[in-house]
């Protein structure tokens, strides 16, 4: 484990060096004067908030974009990549989360992809791939179509492809985002194995603990500038956060206050709800004035149950169970009915279905109001639009400078706040947050948590679905754990710990 760190201490020449690298998009620096280097056999983590320039830097290294100015050196010699293929030939390979594989092709075909000879025998291909996969200790059948592989195995195929392409530098972009804890442990072994082979690794992750654990050195970027590059041993989570944000983050919101809420009316009851294979016999209830956290891994049915309640998905017609809203059984065909009954769902994937990207902040918020039965008016009113938007911009502290910009141009945190505003403007009494802080910058997370608390204090029933345990622990009054479509455990906020929750969520 320590050999990589030794190498990084300057015994060898850096394999890759960027001196004063800048990239300008439309007059704005995405990265500015970044000095970055990478030694052979080193794991170098890149951290920073969204928009800090991590992706831009990596894209420049992988040849997907060119630097506006600055020097790019490979093995001490200046290099200039015209296209990603050049970087690949130079041994630089980027491993995306799971996007760059062709799902209908087999693992072996995917490994070979881009290097096919005119004629290839399936048998030869499979044997070659088998040998490669075995040498890496990957248990993947080369003849299986990639679509049938799990996330972890897809990632293995990606890595195998990188090795097949003789990669010396591998860039991992959020590699652990959708892995289970065991898979992450295995993945870390793999990274260490690659490092032992002399492969240099750039590791982008939002998980600071992971970066501290796996990396030899960590570079922090903020607003396109390099803040610090230091050995991981000299850094802690708190110091990293401080460097990322440039100030002390208000930790107060994270520490739970004393139990202030009082259970009131039972608002929502879910009884034995079943939907296909995703949700099986799920039961729980939600009370007004409390925050219920639902923890669970991806695929545990937590998003699906939220969508079933909201009417975006339909539960089974026969033996589908019952959902009661204040004692009255409900079954929604479309989300509109749920909204009119005061139920809100805030999506986990805002880019796919959270906001209207061609419209400005005000229009997004106003549309949320217009879409409700009570808020509908045939004619638009500028005054009403401005009033609604002003209130929510103020309340959620949405960056007011960007009011005139289309929402797609805002930062992740501001986008999420607009999605919140667009939903909360509908006056819901039950609010389901699905991954409320995914892709949200560290500085904004406390705002969102404070809003969740405030809603519960106003007497609304709040459900927070999250795979980020510190978040669940921080905001919830009561924690439910979902596993394979069921609720398997329930904790009071006072007695819950990460270990207890994980134990229930995994096995």
């Amino acid at each position, binding site marked *: 484990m320590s050999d990589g760190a030794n190498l990084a201490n300057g015994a060898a020449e850096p394999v890759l060096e960027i001196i004063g690298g800048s990239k300008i*998009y*439309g*007059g*704005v620096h995405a990265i500015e004067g970044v000095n970055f280097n990478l030694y052979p056999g080193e794991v170098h983590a890149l951290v920073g908030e*969204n*928009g800090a320039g991590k992706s*831009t830097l990596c*894209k420049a290294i992988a040849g*997907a*974009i060119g630097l506006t100015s600055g020097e790019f050196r490979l093995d001490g010699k200046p290099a200039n990549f015209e*296209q*990603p293929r050049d970087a690949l030939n130079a041994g630089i390979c980027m491993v995306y*989360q799971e996007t760059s594989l062709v799902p209908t092709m087999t693992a072996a075909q995917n490994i070979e992809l881009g290097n096919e000879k005119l004629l290839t025998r399936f048998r030869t291909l499979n044997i070659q791939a088998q040998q490669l996969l075995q040498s890496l200790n990957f248990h993947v059948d080369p003849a299986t179509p990639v679509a049938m592989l799990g996330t972890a195995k897809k990632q293995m195929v990606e890595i195998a492809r990188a090795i097949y392409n003789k990669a010396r530098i591998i860039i991992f*972009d*959020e590699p*652990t985002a959708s892995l289970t*804890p065991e898979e992450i442990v295995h993945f*870390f072994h793999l990274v260490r194995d690659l490092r032992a082979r002399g492969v240099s690794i750039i590791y982008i*992750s*939002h*998980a*600071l*603990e*992971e970066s501290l*654990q796996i990396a030899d050195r960590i570079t922090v970027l903020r607003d396109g500038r390099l803040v610090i590059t230091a050995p991981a041993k000299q850094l802690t989570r708190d110091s990293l956060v401080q460097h990322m944000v440039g100030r002390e983050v208000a930790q107060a919101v994270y520490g739970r206050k004393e139990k202030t809420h009082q259970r009131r009316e039972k608002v929502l009851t879910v009884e034995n709800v079943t939907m296909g294979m995703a949700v099986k016999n799920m039961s729980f209830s939600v009370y007004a004035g409390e925050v219920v956290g639902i923890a669970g891994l991806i695929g545990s049915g937590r998003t699906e149950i939220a969508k079933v309640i909201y009417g*975006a998905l339909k539960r089974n017609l026969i033996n589908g169970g019952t959902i009661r809203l204040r004692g009255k059984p409900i079954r929604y065909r*479309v*989300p*509109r009915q749920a*909204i009119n009954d005061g139920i809100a769902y805030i*999506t986990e994937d805002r*880019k*796919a*279905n*959270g906001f*209207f*990207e*061609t*419209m400005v902040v005000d*229009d997004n918020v*106003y*549309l*949320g109001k217009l879409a409700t039965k009570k808020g509908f008016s045939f*004619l*638009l009113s500028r005054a009403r639009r401005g009033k609604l938007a002003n209130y929510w911009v103020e309340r959620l502290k949405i960056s007011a400078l960007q009011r005139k*910009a*289309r929402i*797609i*141009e*805002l*930062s*992740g945190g501001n986008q999420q706040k607009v999605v919140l505003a667009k939903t909360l403007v509908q006056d819901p009494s039950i609010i389901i947050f699905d*991954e409320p*802080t*995914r892709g949200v910058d560290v500085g904004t997370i406390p705002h969102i948590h404070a809003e969740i608390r405030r809603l519960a204090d106003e007497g609304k029933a709040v459900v927070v679905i999250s*795979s*980020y*345990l510190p978040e669940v622990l921080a905001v919830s009054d009561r924690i439910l754990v979902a596993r394979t479509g069921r609720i398997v455990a329930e904790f009071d906020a006072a007695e819950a710990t*990460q270990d207890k929750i*994980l134990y229930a969520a995994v096995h």
Partner: protein
Amino acid sequence: MRWPLASRSVAVPATTPRIPFNIAKPNQEQIVLLITIVLLIVFGFTLNGFATISNLLNLLRSISILGVLGLGMGLIVISRGIDLSEVATLAGCWAIGLIEMQRGMPVGAAVLLALAIALLIGVINGVMVAFVEAPPLFVTLAAGFVIYGLAFWLAPAWVVYAPRDAPGLMFAGAGRLFGIPVPILVFAVSAIAMHLFLSRTSIGRFIYAQGDNPEAARLTGIPLRPLIVLEYSLVAFLAWLAGLVWVGTTGSMQMAITQGTMIFDVVLVVVIGGISLIGGRGSVFSVVVGCILIGTLLNAFTIMDVNSEVQNIIKGVVLLAAIVLDNFLHPRDEETARQGD
């Protein structure tokens, strides 16, 4: 060791948020408008008889039918749909209406019959798209053929003439109000009404929202299915209105237009003006500008006596130029440019 799961998972890497919005950059509508003005000036100086009031009125009048159809097509394209049965609706409903007039139905009743048929087609198209969830391209392509076949079966003639004793009907095509030909007025009023509808009413906003992101629209609580039925009904209504002008102008309805390139002309004016086929972008102004450009070209061709094959070539080139212009104005980011798609 800390639990590795205690980590923030982020699915969307942020790459775009720092590009400022550049208001000085002209959009496609403004560029097309500029080209049109330049063409008008050039033709005005070079072509004999182009820059006369009567010719310019003629020009506007010639584009009014295309314009009314284009307003409908624009609406549906903004909502991320398309209606290829629009011209067939126009021809079909009026062919049946006119044949009933010949068979003795009162003119007013037959006009309303045509409207009812058009609206029925619109509702059926809408239901197929909204409730059966079939792709609009195929639904309306198939609907166009069915309408053509049914209309030909009910009104078996290539050209169905309007009865001679229906001056009210002819007013829509040949009449003048305040000295302005009625077709131009029909186009102008429709365009203003459509503009107000799209930009000043919440339904209009819903249509843009649907074109922008249908799933987000659904989750926001916008009643998508009724909205889609309404959209296709509006297109059918505009097809009926364009048909009224057509019948008034020519005194007849030709079924042959369903087999011609007219539907592509309609798509052409919409796309040239900057209504993007991916939905949610563009406005009524786009349709008007696209129409005027095409009308100017066609009018100049007529004066110059250019034959129809050459006209088709030029129309095709103009469409391609519009697409190239669109790409030039909205360059794809460096990444896709380097990697290809």
